[in-house]
Structures are given as C-alpha cells and as structure tokens.
C-alpha cells in the first residue's frame, strides 16, 4: 500500500539522494579531466589537425570563377540537385528493361513464314 509521506526515514533518503547525485557528478567530472588531459597529451604528441595558417601565407591563386557574395536558396537547391543527380548517375540512366513486342507480320512468325522456320 502506498502511504503518503508516512514511514519515510527522510534523513536516509536525502543522504542517499545527495550521495548518489554527488557520485554521478564526481565520476563524470573525473571523466572531463581525463578527456581534457587526453586532449592535451594528444596535441603535445603531435596528433594535430593539418595546419591552415601556412596555406594562408601563400599568394592566393586567381579564382577561375568570380566568387559570389552569397548564393540564393534557389541557387543552393539547384547546386544540391545537380550534385545529387551527378553522384546518383540518374541523369542518363536507362531503365534496363527489354520488352519484346510480338508483331503479327514479323519475318519470324511461324504462321506467316513457315518456310523460314522449317529450313
């Protein structure tokens, strides 16, 4: 039976709550330190992302296409569609289904050209 607010040892309950939440927080805080330390160690051991600064120092090549300040939504949609079609190769895809239409006056038709088949 459920007895509202009855027979609860509040000191115990609060102690467990605080201790439980405290431990969860402490463990995850330790993991934060582990990851931060690991990140620092990984950077010190030369595990860096490629340098970008040196590339910027080189004289910039003349762009082949005049840069556009900002593309409109329609432009972006067109570019995305073109890329999608290109990568999916659907722009010139054939159905690959061969259908033979039987025609009555075919040279191979048995009833019309019995000589051809009996050769």
């Amino acid at each position: 039976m459920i007895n509202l607010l009855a027979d609860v040892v509040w000191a115990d309950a609060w102690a467990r709550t605080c201790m439980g939440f405290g431990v969860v927080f402490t463990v995850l805080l330790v993991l934060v330190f582990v990851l931060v330390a690991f990140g620092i160690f990984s950077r010190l051991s030369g595990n860096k992302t490629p340098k970008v600064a040196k590339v910027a120092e080189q004289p910039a090549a003349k762009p082949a296409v005049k840069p556009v300040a900002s593309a409109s939504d329609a432009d972006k949609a067109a570019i995305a569609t073109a890329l999608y079609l290109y990568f999916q190769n659907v722009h010139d895809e054939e159905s690959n289904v061969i259908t033979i239409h039987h025609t009555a006056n075919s040279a191979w038709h048995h009833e019309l050209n019995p000589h051809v088949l009996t050769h």
Partner: protein
Amino acid sequence: MKKIFCILFMLMLVTVGCFAESFDFGVASEKFVNSMGFVQIFQGDGWKSLVMVAIACFLLWLAIKKQYEPLLLLPIAFGMLLTNLPGANMFHTEMWNDEFLNPSSEYYHSYRHVLAEGGLLDVLYIGVKAGIYPCLIFIGVGAMTDFGPLIANPKSFLLGAAAQLGIFITFITAHALGFDSQEAASIGIIGGADGPTSIFLTTKLAPHLLGPIAIAAYSYMALVPVIQPPIMRLLTTKKERMIEMKQLRTVSKTEKIIFPIAITIVVAFILPDAAPLIGCLMLGNLMKESGVVERLAKTVQNELMNIVVIFLGTTVGATATASTFLDIKTLSILCMGIVAFGVATAGGVIFAKIMNLFLKEKINPLIGSAGVSAVPMAARVSQTEGQKANPRNFLLMHAMGPNVAGVIGSAVAAGILLSMLG
C-alpha cells in the same frame, strides 16, 4: 475405394464404442467450456485480463500507427497480450515472484526449475533476470554511437551529469509516496531515459515492478519531442536559444580508440557496479572505432541487437500481468516517470545556463536538455528548438555530446544506486 471407407468407418465406431464407457461427454464438454478464454473472463478477476488485453492493443496501436518507439513497444505490447490471454499460461508470474525470489522456497534462485517447468516466455525471461539482455543491447548501442562530439567537447559530460537530477528527484518523490528504497530507485531510473539501464536496475532491485517501469520508460522516451520543448522554452529566453556555437574540433581516430578503453577503466575503478553496463557500451564502441573487427561490429549493431530486442521486449511485456499492472502503484509509476523526464530536462537546461555564467564562449542552453539519454531523439529536439529560434543554428552535433554523456551518466547512476541498495 468405397469399401475402404466403410471399413475405416466401422473401425472408428468400434473404437468409440470401446472407449465410450470411460468417456463422459458431459464432463468433457464442461471442461472444454471452462477452459475457454471467453468463459474465464467472467470468472473471478478474469475481467482484469480483458482490461490488460485492451491496454496491450492500445500500445500496439501506438507502436504501429503512431510509430512510438515501435522496435521495442511492439514486442513489449505483444508480450503483454500473450501473458494476459486467459488460460493460455504463457508466462508464470508465480514461478518468478513466489518461488524464484522466496528464500524459503525450494526453488529459490533455481533456473533449473524454470527450464524444467517454465514455458517459452519463462525460459527467455532468464536473460532479463540475469541481466544479460540489457548488457547485450548496450554492446549494440555502443557500436552505433559516435562519441566524437563528447571527446571534442568534454564539458558535455557535466550536462549529462546534471540531467541525472531527474533520477534522484524522482527517487526522493517515490520515497515520499511510500515506495521502499529499492522501488524508489527503480522508478527514479526512468529519468535516465535509458531503457536497458532501467530494466537492468529494476531486475536487480524491484523485479515485481519491471513491467510498468519498462513501459513507462519506453513510452516516455517516445514522447521526448512532446515532453521536452515546453520545458526548454519555459526555462530559456529567446536570446539564449539563439546562441550560435562554434564548430567542434576534429577528433582523431586514436582518440576515438583510446576513449572507450579509458572510460571503462576509470568508471570501473571508481564504481565497479557500473562496470557491466559501461563495459558493454564501450566494448561495442571499441569494435566500431578500432575498425579491425568490422564483421563483429556489424553483427552487434544488427543481428545481435535485433534478436535481443525481440527477446527482451516480449519477456518484459510478459511481466505486465493483470495482478501486477492493474494497481495504484502502476499509476503512480507512470505519473512519476513523466516527472522524472521533466526534471531531467530542466536539470540539463538550468546547468547549461549556470555554466554560461563562467564560460567565455557561451553554450546554447538548449543542448542541456539532451543530457537525458534518449539517443538521438533528445539531440534532435535541441536542434529543432534551436532552429526555431535562429534558422542559422545547427545544434545537433553539439547536443550529441551531452546526449551520449547522458548514456554514461545514467549507467553510472544505476551503478551507484545498485551499490547503495543492491
């Protein structure tokens, strides 16, 4: 041909005649009628089974029509349907509650008895009882999870920790409502928004509440997009929701490989009770990130995960019998489950705001709500809410950090509750 039929017919008549002395048609037909489910519904508490069948059908409707966590809700609901079919005796609750858990019973903790006397669902339930299925599911979850956003932004761990507030507030609330410590802890873990963790802890602490808790956990997880946004909007200003965050740094493969090993060692050393869940989660992740056991990684993500989900879902559903489910306690559990989710969401958001008081680069408080596990739905909610406030806001990857931290956080919370109350 006709002769053969005549002979067979005569033989049949002779056979029936021979047994007619011991065959009482009246008794047999009475037995048959009494064994029918339709009749059992009107006997004693039989009507409760009918109510449970209706609830199971409602859950099936939610899973199929509304697609609320269908992968789990569908087997759970069907297990519930099977176990409540009057007279079918698909699952023997008394075998588990009265015999298996009773120290004075000769079948106390006797799996041999279950294997000898139990039905299919009883045998499959051994995996739940022994805590095997949740751990196997965690291997699959680990193999499907990318911890990159968490490694790139370790502060996310704190948001994952803050969101576990829901577990502990619900724990104390359940205490206030008269549940004992073990039951209160099992109800509180719903706030972790992590199905396998909820099942793992409940089977250890309060196995009689497994049905309602599993159903509450999975149902509310499916309702994350409904429960979280109002709380998130209530606790943040539009200016805060508009905060744009910098792109995360690239994480190297070495970091991703060392992460699961380091986390397993650190967590297991501090809290050995959390080792089964964390260990399995990280094993799956290591399989994926190492790249040397692609076949194993694919298996745990697909075949193993799917098989275990079927077993787990069906058997957990089977525990929801009329006698255990149709109780005022179930209603309280369902109510407290929603409180747990709400407080967990609020905890994450509020802690993100507190962090902003000390950080130079502000974080969007909306990512705090993703600290409840519910991967990746909670992160998607942060993304959606962020974009509503500022269409140029892309919070998904930032929210994935607290989201996966929440998985670790809820497993750690389960570990500490197990060590205190187990």
